[in-house]
């Protein structure tokens, strides 16, 4: 295995055509590892089609906490020739390719990679008329190669097929066993990992973790129109609706989804919706409506590679600019970009608390790489978080009511007005998207432009915008990894942090003086603090998954921090730590050449 060799760590990749069940096979082996005490991180290389083409599933597992997809591939299981051709070059020395010689011709392989030939289809045909179980056979073979207890796989198969007729699970288990035995005969385990079968670690994608966090934070209204890679959220919500009492509204489009979410929140629910960029574009007008009526909402955008329809099953961090310019004129918004599934879980309650405390729209940015495409171990979840509904009142302070109308948009010291919900007596109000006064009366018709009312318009506009000053104080500063005062500083945000963090580890081993600043709270930005913190940075290298370095531009715009060195990826694939490592090594060379 490569320089990155470690017996505590493993990377593997399954490849086949869409419809071959590679995703569920991948999830099963992920479970096997998770149930053997390993931390995992995965990636689903799928395509925008339902059958055919080429899809793959990548797993990185380790006995210690990990975040990224790891280095190269230790074990490749190509079920098709294309899967071999696409991935064999990434195989690590000391690794292996497990293949069926009928389907795959090996070529140009590094001699330090072991070839494990297994008649996958033949074995599968023992248990069904069509060789659909060949991936199960492969999983069995893989278990032998990595030395994990085959019973863990059997159990995972049982869980997977439990709802079907018993023969299905039984036959799959037999098929897996055959694969296992066949490899066991050929070789001893290539990995010498101390699996700990007493520790089982849950793994989630950020989509699921966020859904779980939202419901745990009191969200029982969820609206959606399906869109990859946000659809897993609605799938989770719908499949838990009965158990948890969630109202799932399937709108006719994203416009209805956003407006219904606002309606539900106005009525007192904690309401959320999610989509991807194209759907978000359609929601924009209504997000302005939420801000103007000061209705709290949480909106999730799981980003994918664009522009426009783009690459629907591929990843990107390209929607930040959109979030900074949502619909017309100025209004406050919060933008959060959790870095991984675990942080996504905790971001949901934070988002609701911020939304309700400040009565603003809160945007959560996820992306395909962690949202739909990537599971990651999430353990030790703590469900005991505070639900802070802000200034939500059920009886009116005397100064705020005339017996029926409520001064819903009162000017206050902190620019946040007490709020009521329909059904509450003596606290009626009209939420208006037209400019309005403290009581919610229109300033756009008979009062528009009158000199006495211009200051009120100004004050209402300021009241909304100045919330940003308060919100800022709750925004987290970047998390710093690596030594302070390093020569090179990587600036990154959201899911790109994962590859960076793991690259850092390797770079430090190589003696590179590098640290990183990971941003998860994006906007509003504590510009002075950020500038101060980044003044300690070395040569800054911006790492993000878009063409135009959107986050770096925001840093420049808000904090005046200028970055001149970029690692930008925009081919739809997630960042691998080795890419960051390579870029930083090259940067170091340049720097040394100059110095």
């Amino acid at each position, binding site marked *: 295995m490569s320089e990155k060799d470690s017996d505590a760590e493993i990377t593997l990749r399954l490849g086949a055509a869409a419809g071959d069940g590679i995703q569920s096979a991948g999830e099963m082996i992920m479970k096997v590892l998770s149930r053997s005490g390993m931390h995992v991180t995965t990636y689903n290389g799928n395509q925008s089609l339902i059958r055919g083409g080429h899809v793959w599933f990548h797993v990185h597992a380790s006995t210690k906490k990990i975040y990224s997809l790891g280095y190269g591939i230790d074990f490749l299981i190509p079920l098709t020739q294309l899967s071999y051709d696409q991935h064999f070059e990434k195989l690590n020395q000391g690794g292996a390719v497990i293949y069926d010689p009928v389907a795959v011709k090996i070529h140009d392989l590094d001699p330090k990679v072991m070839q494990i030939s297994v008649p996958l289809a033949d074995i599968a045909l023992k248990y069904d008329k069509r060789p659909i179980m060949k991936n199960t056979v492969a999983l069995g073979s893989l278990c032998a190669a990595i030395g994990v207890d085959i019973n863990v796989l059997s159990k995972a198969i049982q869980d997977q097929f439990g709802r079907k007729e018993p023969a299905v699970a039984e036959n799959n288990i037999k098929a897996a066993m055959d694969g296992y035995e066949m490899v066991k005969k050929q070789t001893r385990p290539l990995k010498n990992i101390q699996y700990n079968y007493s520790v089982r670690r849950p793994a989630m994608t950020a989509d699921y973790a966020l859904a779980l966090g939202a419901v745990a934070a009191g969200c029982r209204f969820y609206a959606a129109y399906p869109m990859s890679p946000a659809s897993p959220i609605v799938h989770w919500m719908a499949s838990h609706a009965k158990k948890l009492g969630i109202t799932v509204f399937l709108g006719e489009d994203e416009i209805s989804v956003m407006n219904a979410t606002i309606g*539900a929140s*106005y009525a007192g629910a904690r309401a959320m919706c999610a989509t991807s960029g194209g759907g978000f574009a359609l929601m924009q007008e209504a997000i302005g409506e939420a801000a103007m009526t000061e209705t709290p909402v949480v909106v999730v955008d799981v980003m994918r590679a664009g522009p426009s329809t783009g690459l629907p099953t591929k990843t990107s961090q390209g929607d930040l600019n959109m979030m900074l310019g949502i619909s017309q004129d100025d209004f406050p918004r919060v933008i959060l970009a959790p870095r991984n599934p675990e942080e996504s879980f905790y971001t949901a309650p934070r988002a609701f608390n911020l939304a309700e405390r400040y009565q603003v729209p809160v945007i959560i940015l996820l992306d395909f790489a962690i949202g739909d495409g990537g599971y990651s171990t999430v353990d030790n979840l703590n469900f005991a978080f505070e639900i802070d509904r802000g200034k939500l009142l059920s009886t009116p302070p005397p100064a705020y009511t005339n017996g029926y109308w409520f001064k819903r948009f009162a000017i206050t010291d902190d620019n946040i007005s007490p709020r009521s919900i329909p059904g509450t007596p003596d606290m009626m109000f009209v939420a208006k998207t037209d400019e309005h006064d403290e009581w919610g009366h*229109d300033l756009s018709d008979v009062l528009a432009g009158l000199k006495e009312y211009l200051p009120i318009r100004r004050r209402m506009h300021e009241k909304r915008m100045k919330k940003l000053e308060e919100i800022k104080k709750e925004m987290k500063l970047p998390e710093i990894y690596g030594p302070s005062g390093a020569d090179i500083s990587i600036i990154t945000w959201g899911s790109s942090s994962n590859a960076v963090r793991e690259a850092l580890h390797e770079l430090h081993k190589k003696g590179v003086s590098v640290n990183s600043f990971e941003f998860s709270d994006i906007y509003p930005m504590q510009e002075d603090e950020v500038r101060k913190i980044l003044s300690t940075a070395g040569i800054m290298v911006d790492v993000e998954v878009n063409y135009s370095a959107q986050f770096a531009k925001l840093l420049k715009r808000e904090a005046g921090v200028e970055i001149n060195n970029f690692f930008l990826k925009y081919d739809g694939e997630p960042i691998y730590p080795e890419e960051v490592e390579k870029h930083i090594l090259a940067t170091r060379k340049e720097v040394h050449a100059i110095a």
Partner: protein
Amino acid sequence: MPLLNPKPFESDTRADWCPGCGDFGVLAALKDALQKSGRQPHEVVVVSGIGCSSNLPGYIRTYGFHGLHGRPVPVAVGIKNANPKLLVIATAGDGDEYGIGFNHVVHAARRNDDIKLIVMNNEIYGLTTGQLSPTSKLGQKTKTSPDGSIIYPLKPLPTILGAGGTFIARTFSGDPKHMSWVIQEAIKHRGFALVDAISPCVTWHNIYDEVKKLFYRLEDRGYKPDDENEAYKAMNAQDGIPIGIFYRREDKQSFQERLAEINGGRWAADNVKSLGSEIAQSLVQEML
């Protein structure tokens, strides 16, 4: 709380519609119907879009949401789905509901969402100073059709019937009692009600006289709103402008009734709480 105020839905803000605007009639009828419904003002939410007509929530004493052009229906649906105890009424213009926002109406109708939609149909875009609306007539001259409209008008009622609407009515602000009655019936209806309220715009397209001459009440002719095919014919009638309830069925569950079967009546507005740790753990277990 009993209704102490004799006119509990009367607001203190003067409506600033043009004198003579049909919307005054709709406002009066709605207040009357609400009072007769026995609801408390704070249990009612009136949701609107953008247009002259959509200023209505500012002029009635209930909770109100004066949102975006074309979007009252999804806001209303969101409110109703979060707290079905509220009476949710959407009031808006023909531009809002038959133009930009018509798809929401179609889908609320087919879902049978338990909201009441009153469309103040004046066959014109009033607030934007008189442009062609989806219900403008062929040949109608407006700012966007100075040579006379060349677009066949939309027939919203048969469209919504076709889409599965369960309560479809037309009324006229020149017949205030009729209008109040229709709205009362809409409020009583199980599910989605579309009330097409002819509400002339005296400034840009005054059809008062025309409608007064041509309208007739379906109920005066012994019409029964229980047959879908007859309703379809009546809606397309060429012998004048029929008003009344064209179609009504009470045997279809509302969407919210069906939803209760899934969420178990645990409505989102009353249910903002964290998960018990047992449930929380079981959810984590699923991911393992």
